[in-house]
């Protein structure tokens, strides 16, 4: 494993498998009465959240705590600039306090890269602007592998506001790395320029894509994109790109329906679709803790075998 996790591209295909395998052994911890192993006892993990994200923060917090690490939550809304203390000064403070790992969520793309200049510990990107969200991609890969048993040759569509989605970037690169085929689907205004150079297919017609899928991954579409004129109305967006009951019927049997949350029910996904058995949205959340445990463990801990065997 690399020292930092800034982009999913920092993780080789081999390491992805390692992360997922390790997560699998950690997932059992979550089912115990005492959900804790001593693997990172005495290590300090800081959750540095410049953007509100209760789900991701709690997931990281639980992951670190289940590994017995000391966890500090440093949350602040808005940019460091508006807050008055620079990212650099915050970083130096955390460094002085001896943070072994800093999990950063920030509204500015690239902030985790900037952070690495000032801290000695590992930096984990928990979502930076419209860039990447690599731990989300890894938990999605975990969920896909668990349900479908493989990546090679799988056909996945990522549907919606790809342009502004850090989840879409990380997941696209991750799936491609593991040998899956990826099609980005959405209105042309929400597909990143030159995205096909990533090695993905691009389609503006969801109905043409659905019948061939193994994974249908829906992205959250924010209503403010309408105000920014990316599409004319939320109603039209839902009609053209939303995953409705009728569209679910076009999916092959066994195709997973996924969503990184939080969902806009009725916009990108119909309310009852989200509750179908092939929708694995809650499992994604559950798996998030095990995958983040695995990452913290592999990045901060040592060899897998001895310490994992220590648990209980």
């Amino acid at each position, binding site marked *: 494993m690399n020292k930092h996790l800034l982009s999913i591209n920092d993780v080789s295909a081999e390491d992805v498998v390692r992360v997922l395998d390790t997560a699998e052994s950690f997932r059992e911890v979550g089912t115990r009465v005492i959900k804790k192993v001593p693997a990172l006892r005495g290590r300090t993990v800081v959750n540095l959240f410049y953007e509100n994200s209760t789900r991701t923060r709690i997931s990281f917090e639980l992951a670190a705590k289940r590994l017995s690490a000391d966890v500090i939550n440093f949350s602040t809304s808005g940019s*460091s600039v508006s807050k008055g203390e620079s990212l650099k000064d915050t970083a130096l403070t955390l460094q002085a306090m001896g943070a072994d790992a800093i999990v950063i969520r920030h509204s500015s793309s690239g*902030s985790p890269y900037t952070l690495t200049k000032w801290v000695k510990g590992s930096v984990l990107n928990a979502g930076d602007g419209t860039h990447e969200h690599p731990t989300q991609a890894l938990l999605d890969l975990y969920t896909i592998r668990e349900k479908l048993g493989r990546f090679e040759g799988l056909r996945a569509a990522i549907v919606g506001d790809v342009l502004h989605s850090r989840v879409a970037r990380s997941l696209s690169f991750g799936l491609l790395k593991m040998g899956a085929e990826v099609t980005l689907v959405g209105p042309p205004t929400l597909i990143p320029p030159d995205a096909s*150079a990533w090695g993905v297919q691009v389609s503006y017609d969801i109905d043409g894509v659905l019948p061939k899928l193994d994974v249908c991954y829906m992205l959250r579409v924010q209503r403010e994109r309408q105000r920014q004129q990316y599409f004319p109305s939320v109603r039209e967006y839902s009609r053209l790109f939303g995953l409705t009951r009728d569209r679910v019927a076009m999916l092959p049997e066994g195709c997973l329906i996924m969503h990184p949350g939080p969902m806009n029910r009725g916009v990108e996904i119909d309310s009852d679709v989200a509750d179908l058995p092939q929708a694995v949205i809650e499992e994604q959340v559950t798996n998030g803790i095990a995958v983040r445990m695995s990452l913290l463990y592999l990045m901060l801990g040592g060899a897998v075998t001895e310490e994992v065997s220590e648990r209980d």
Partner: protein
Amino acid sequence: MTEHTLFRGARVVDPASGRDGTIDVLIEGGTVAAVGGGTERRGATVLDCRGLVLAPGLVDLHAHLRQPGREDKETVETGSRAAAVGGYTAVAAMANTDPVADNAAVIEEVRSLAARAGLCDVFPVGAITKGLGGEEMAEVGEMAQAGVRVFSDDGRCIPSARVLRNALRYARAFDVVIAEHCEDASLSEGAQMHEGLHSSTLGLAGAPAEAEEVAVFRDLALARLTGGRLHLCHLSAAGSVELVRLAKASGLRVTAEVTPHHLAFSDEDLVTYDTNFKVNPPLRTVEDRDALRAAVADGTIDAIATDHAPHAVEEKEAEFDQSPPGTIGLETALAAVLTNLVEPGLISLSRTIEAMSATPATILGAAEHGGPIEPGRPANLVAFDPAADWLVQAPFASRSRNSAFLGKRLRGKVIHTMYRGQLVVADGKAQR
């Protein structure tokens, strides 16, 4: 007794006279006394310039000296020193100061600060519109009468075609140059870099090359309509170059500049979110960069200008989208051009001096700069070692250190800069 300085054994490259050869140059007081024959003077300070190139001092059409208003980033004095260290003897200081240089009083203030520093000539650029607001024309005539030759709202493109049309028309009365920063703001709103594969991968909002090209096309059309004298600042896109090429072929009186950083780098360099590569216009693709290099070679782009843009350390250390665009450039410009264009054989040394001295001097109306190096001419000269290899690192003579070239090795180093007969830089070191 008058002081004499002899540049001995240098290769003199002086496009204004067409000279390119090894010849001695004698300076007496503030002027060139002799070139070639009759250069021996008893008691003259002799500078051994074997292996060096001697050329007219460089002239920068585009620098932000930040004074008045942001003296924490740069002052006229520190900017002048950076210019001297980079081999410049004349610099055009952009108008986006605080207060804006949109009236003769600010112009005079900048001039007097420059005179007090005495390290190079500073030519204040006047704003085209009041407060750079893009709406009301500034008192162009009064500033022209105070000696301003170039007007620009640089940093902003004049949003209204009508306002620009009138400025180009009005400027004709004084034969002054309107220098435009070409950017359609509606296409570049929120942009952090060039729009393309890399902006998509990095998740940064991009401005397409067309944001510049649309404005270039509009401006060329208005120059044609008005007969006004248009100069296009810091071109960044292959499409813009093509538009200028066509306009020139049709006889339009237009000039254009490019920065050393646009000639050296591309959007690939942003992959680590290094804010020193965040500039406006943004670094574009390798293809754009190559088109810019070719345009310098064939003369479509007339001049190389630094767009020296100092920023405070804490501003450039901020998150990428919070950081202001700009790189300093005065101290690295010549070396960047020598390394990226001369070394690979794209342009000659003579073309380099033409694009960095003779032509900008003409555009700026800086008659005492740009050569020719001939008896009786003011002694504004640079001697540089085209082969010296060096690492760009802080500290700089500039008060800021936001250089896109930080940590890069460049070839070509300024050894002496002579301003009005005074060695303001000797053996690579600023003397004052």
